[in-house]
């Protein structure tokens, strides 16, 4: 494999929505991009962990980053939260030698050392260089109107990510590759409300935020929400059950690609989502026939 990454699935994809992990493995295998597994721990979350103790967050994050250093592989995330952690930890340690020393002081207690050699990358930034192959692999034009959700930690802070956080277009383009249309809706770049430990620590506020966003999506008559973050994914799927006002199926981009590549929805664990994906499945079946 010429192109290979250290696969960092994150706790949500591993332990709550394994369909996202499976979809990722399938899509990357089809794209002939290697994914290697390492003894990763929780990233740890930029919400709960960094907010409780930022130094600890740096150390645990660095432990994850260093795992693939010996193989010269860059870690790849599929959750924007994990990306927020790994990328920002990498950036902070790269620019502050004192922090790097602190981190390595702790890591040395278990005979580990972080050299800052590799560079964490979010899966969307890998897929964007494979647009042609994706178009080739596509078996169905899904024809869905979707609400795309970038996820805050993929875009910001732009001083670290280098993204255009006011007018991003990449995810809109990526769903178009498989015949979907990114439908504009009010406050399309707004946070899902789960981050910063709010989902766990202030659940009322978290639900209020996501409720507003879901209603905006509903007003735009979308068939599905497409995200590039397992945590946002979980927020959208779980909160709709709690709120009961909307029933918009939620798909991770890799699940969307899986469907477009002709993989059966069950193999992408779509049947385990809290918000039923039946309507999507129906549309996909129709696309197959047509």
């Amino acid at each position, binding site marked *: 494999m010429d192109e290979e990454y250290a696969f960092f699935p994150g706790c949500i994809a591993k332990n709550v929505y394994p369909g996202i992990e499976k979809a990722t493995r399938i899509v990357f295998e089809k794209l002939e991009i290697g994914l290697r597994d390492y003894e990763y721990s929780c990233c740890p979350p930029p919400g709960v962990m960094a907010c409780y103790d930022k130094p600890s967050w740096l150390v645990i994050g660095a432990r994850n980053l260093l795992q693939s250093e010996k193989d010269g592989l860059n870690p790849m995330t599929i959750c924007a939260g994990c990306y927020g952690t790994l990328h920002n930890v990498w950036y902070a340690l790269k620019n502050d030698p004192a922090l790097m020393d602190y981190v390595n002081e702790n890591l040395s207690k278990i005979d580990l050392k972080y050299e800052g050699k590799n560079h964490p990358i979010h899966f969307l930034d890998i897929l964007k260089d494979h647009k042609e192959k994706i178009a080739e692999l596509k078996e169905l034009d899904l024809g869905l109107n979707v609400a795309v959700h970038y996820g805050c*930690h993929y875009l910001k802070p732009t001083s670290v990510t280098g993204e255009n956080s006011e007018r991003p277009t990449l995810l809109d383009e990526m769903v178009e590759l498989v015949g979907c249309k990114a439908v504009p809706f009010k406050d399309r770049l707004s946070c899902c409300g789960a981050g910063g430990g709010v989902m766990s620590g202030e659940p009322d506020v978290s639900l209020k935020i996501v409720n507003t966003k879901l209603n905006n999506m509903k007003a735009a008559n979308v068939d599905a929400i497409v995200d590039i973050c397992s945590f946002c994914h979980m927020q959208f799927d779980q909160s709709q059950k709690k709120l009961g006002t909307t029933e918009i199926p939620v798909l991770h981009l890799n699940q969307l690609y899986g469907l477009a590549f002709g993989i059966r929805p069950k193999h992408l664990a779509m049947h385990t989502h809290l918000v039923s994906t039946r309507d999507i499945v129906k549309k996909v079946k129709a696309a197959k026939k047509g």
Partner: protein
Amino acid sequence: MGKSVKEILMDGNGYACIQCGRCTGSCPSGRECSLRTRKLIHMARIGMDVIKEDELWDCTTCFTCQERCPKEVKTTDMIIELRNLAVEEGYLPTMADVPKIIIKSLYDTGAGQPLSPEISKVRSIIGLKKEAYDVSTNEETLKKFQRLLDGLEITRKGGLR
């Protein structure tokens, strides 16, 4: 490494703030609750007990305020660091138990969100290993990980020691 409020303000460029309010105006949480990012910075600067404010925990760290601040004040970074201080002093979010559970799970299993038997089954069905290969796969590795955490503040703040 505990920083004081003054140090947090210095590192976060908080003294440059002109209280223009673009941060609060951009805040998705502020529209739904009483979080006023601008006010938190003001309180910190004039020496009020900002770490006691409940609203400190309503921020989702979406970074929109930090992006839009014309004075390059690192609003979100400061909120995160003020939270560190708040936890230290015992001022916690409303559902303080839940973060504690997550920290405990991180310690015990290496994952903030642990694997349940039901999901393990789903993993098998869809063709993944029933438990992902990670820090908890090898007992030795998990023990080392726990030893690492023993030396970090997170375990003390999470009530584990």
